[in-house]
C-alpha cells in the first residue's frame, strides 16, 4: 500500500458519492444553496474521504484501472485484486473483510481542497472466529491534510483476514 498520495477533491466526485448514497441533501451539490448556509459552500458527506481510493496508486481493489503513480511506468498485467477472481499478487478477496471504520473530523472537507493523504499501520491482533476460523485484525490509519498542513479528516480502518469465507 502506498503511504502517501494526493487527493484532489472536486464537486463532481462529491456529487457522485452523495448520489450513490441516495442523498438529496443540497449541501452536497447545490452551490447556491450551500453559499447561503453558515458553511458558506458545498461540503462532502461524512464518509467521503474513503473515495481517496481513486487516487491511491496502490489501492488493491481498483478494477481495470491502469493509471500509474506519477513518475512510474504503467502497471503491467492484471492489477492485484482485479476482475479475475483471486488474480494478481493482491489479497485473496474472498478472505478479506472490513471489520470496523472510524472517522475523526477536524474541519469540513470541501471541493477545491487538494488533500495530502498519509497512512500508516496501527494495532494488529488475532482471535478465533466462531465461523471463519482464525481471524487476523489490522488497523490502518490515514490522515488527510489540506494545503496548509492542517488535519481535515483522520480515518482508522480495521481489516480482517479470515481463515475461510465467512458464512452469514
Amino acid at each position, binding site marked *: 500500500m502506498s503511504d502517501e498520495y494526493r487527493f484532489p477533491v472536486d464537486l463532481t*466526485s462529491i456529487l*457522485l*458519492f452523495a*448520489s*450513490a*448514497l*441516495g*442523498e438529496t*441533501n443540497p*449541501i452536497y451539490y447545490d452551490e447556491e444553496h450551500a453559499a447561503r*448556509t*453558515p*458553511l*458558506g459552500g458545498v*461540503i462532502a*458527506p*461524512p*464518509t467521503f474521504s*474513503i*473515495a*481517496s*481510493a*481513486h487516487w491511491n496508486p496502490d*489501492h488493491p*481493489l*481498483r*478494477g481495470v484501472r491502469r493509471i500509474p503513480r506519477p513518475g512510474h511506468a504503467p502497471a503491467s498485467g492484471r492489477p492485484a*485484486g482485479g*476482475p479475475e*477472481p*483471486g488474480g494478481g499478487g493482491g489479497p485473496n*478477496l*474472498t478472505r478479506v*473483510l*472490513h*471489520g*470496523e*471504520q*472510524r*472517522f*475523526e*473530523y477536524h*474541519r*469540513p472537507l470541501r471541493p477545491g481542497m487538494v488533500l495530502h493523504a498519509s497512512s500508516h499501520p496501527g494495532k494488529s491482533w488475532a482471535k478465533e472466529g466462531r465461523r471463519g476460523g482464525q481471524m487476523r485484525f489490522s488497523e490502518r490509519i490515514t490522515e488527510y491534510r489540506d494545503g496548509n498542513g492542517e488535519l481535515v479528516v483522520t480515518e*482508522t480502518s480495521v481489516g480482517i483476514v479470515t481463515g475461510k*469465507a465467512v*458464512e*452469514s
Partner: protein
Amino acid sequence: MSNPKLRCEDLSVGDQREAVVVENLSRTQIVQYAGASGDFNPIHHDETFATGAAGYPSVFAHGMLTMGLTGKLLTDWLGDGVLRSFGVRFVSQVWPGDTLTARGTVRSVEDRGDDGLVSIDLVTVNQKGEPVVTGSATALLARSR
C-alpha cells in the same frame, strides 16, 4: 463552521431518532457505490465471483455503503458539518433487497462552554431486525445564550 439543525439543549440523554435509510437495496446502488468510492472488489458486483469462488449466496453491499447510509441519519438529524467523530463495526452483511433502518440514541451531552458535545449510540438493522452495523458518533452543537 457548521450548519446545525439543533442546539445542544434540544437533546437529552435517551432521546432517539430512527429513519429508513434504504429500502429494497438494489444491485444498481451497490454498483453505483463501487464507482463512486473506488472499491471494485468483485464480491460486491460480480455475482459469478461472489457465489462461485467466494461461496456467498449473492453479491453484498460494501460495508462503507452501509456506513454512508447510516451517516444520513446523523446529518438529517443533527445538521451539516457538526460531526466530530463517526465509527462503526460491520457486524453482518447487507444483501440486495434489504431495507435498512438506522437508529441513534443520545448517550451523553457534555458541556464545552459555548457548545455541547453530544455522543450518540448507533445501530442499523435490516428488515428482520438484525443489526448490520453498530457504532457511535459525536457532534458539536452550539448552546443558546
